[in-house]
């Protein structure tokens, strides 16, 4: 038990003293999560809306694809993104290997199916005829979309939190595409790997505490909103 106590007290010391590196890593993690989620939302929300609104053949296939994409192995996606960015490959000219933009590409690709699938299933869960009614009243595509997303906001929020959470927690693609370069492309989660391999268990414990706190805060927000809206939309627990 003494080992555990030492590690925890040393970790809390580091957090309490405002360790600059820990702060910078936390900020980088948030930056990565926010930017990649924003890009995924920009493209994924309209697409999810389209797939959720129409139940004809092609949208349904698209939805199946998005659902399947939820489980894509991040390390496998990471290795192919990393290849694409190598000199001599299609995106090699950008010189993005082991940089933050490369990480953003990988995390956006991972977040994209989440946003599309969760948005589509939220829109599909709206009362039948609601959107037809809006169309009958002459609402434009844009207005109908905004209306549908507002009605399905719990599902959309679930998608946002899931995308943020995935970017915060993920290490496979982060390490492969970003190289886990300390001070440049490491996130909170991947710093645990760095600190462990650098025989710095106290530092890794500090990362662990901050990471878990971040995840709990994200989850707490989601639970709070879901509870508040519970009467309107019953979400299956599995969707978180």
């Amino acid at each position, binding site marked *: *038990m*003494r*080992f*555990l106590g*030492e*590690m925890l007290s040393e970790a809390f010391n580091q957090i309490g003293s405002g360790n600059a590196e820990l702060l910078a890593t936390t900020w980088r993690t948030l930056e990565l999560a926010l930017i990649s989620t924003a890009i995924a939302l920009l493209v994924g929300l309209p697409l999810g809306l389209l797939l959720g609104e129409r139940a004809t053949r092609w949208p349904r296939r698209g939805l*199946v694809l998005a*659902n*399947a*994409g*939820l*489980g*894509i*192995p*991040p*390390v*496998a996606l*990471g*290795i*192919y993104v*990393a*290849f694409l960015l190598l000199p001599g490959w299609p995106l090699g000219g950008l010189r993005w290997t082991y940089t933050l933009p490369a990480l953003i590409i990988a995390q956006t690709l*991972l977040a994209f199916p*989440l946003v599309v*699938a*969760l948005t589509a*299933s939220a829109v599909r*869960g709206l009362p039948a005829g609601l959107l037809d009614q809006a169309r009958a009243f002459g609402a434009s595509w844009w207005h109908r979309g905004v209306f549908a997303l507002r009605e399905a906001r719990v599902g959309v929020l679930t998608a946002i939190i*899931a995308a943020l*959470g995935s970017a*915060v*927690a*993920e*290490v*496979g*693609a982060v*390490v*492969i595409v970003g*190289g886990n370069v300390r001070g440049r492309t490491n996130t909170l*989660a991947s710093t*645990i*790997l760095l600190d*462990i391999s650098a025989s710095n*268990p106290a530092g*890794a*414990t500090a*990362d*662990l505490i901050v*990471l*878990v706190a971040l*995840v*709990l805060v*994200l*989850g707490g927000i989601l*639970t709070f909103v879901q509870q508040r809206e519970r009467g309107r939309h019953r979400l*299956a*627990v*599995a*969707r*978180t």
Partner: protein
Amino acid sequence: MSALAGDLLPTTLRTLRVGFESTAIAVGLGIPAGAALGLGRFRGRGPLLAVANAGIRMPPVAVGMALWLLMYPTSVWGGGPLSGLDWLYTTSAVILAQSLLALPIVIALTAAATQRVPNDLLDQARAFGAGTFASALLALREARIGVLAAVTAALGTALVSFGAVTIVGSSLGDATLATAALVQWGAGGHDGQAAATGAVLIGMFLVIAALLTALQQERGPATVVVRPG
């Protein structure tokens, strides 16, 4: 030495073995627990479900790091509480970590699936004299699509999640899994092997995804999120 230099076949087989064993453990514990949470009416049920749901979101590296602290071998500072097992950097530790990652998925999805079984049906069964155990079995059979989806999602997680594996196992040597080997790509010189390992993982993913899709067509859960790596 890069782990990618090793043979692809043993790594693939080891990945499958660890995946199936951890899923089996998670299913063995998780289905009874999930059914109890989905069907039971006892105090503390809500908080326990919340813990299972929070568990799904817990990053694999966090689970791995916590296990690492618990299993740290005896040293000048003493050891972790589980140091007696002597499991750190062995396949047993990897299986334990992957089971812990898969467990909340099985529990939460099984609970959600059994909750959707109509209450009338279970009341009727009880009226005909079915005990708690028999009516739970009936509920699980009625919710079988959702339970199968839970098992598949757990298997997906156990196969593709990498964060915990690399901390409590070792990325090098005989215990390497496909995911962990792939992350060694940065060590250089094995592009072909990395592409092949990636293809193996994508192949496993396609099988899991096809299974889940088929289950969803059968009116399973609308979306099943597999844990990020």
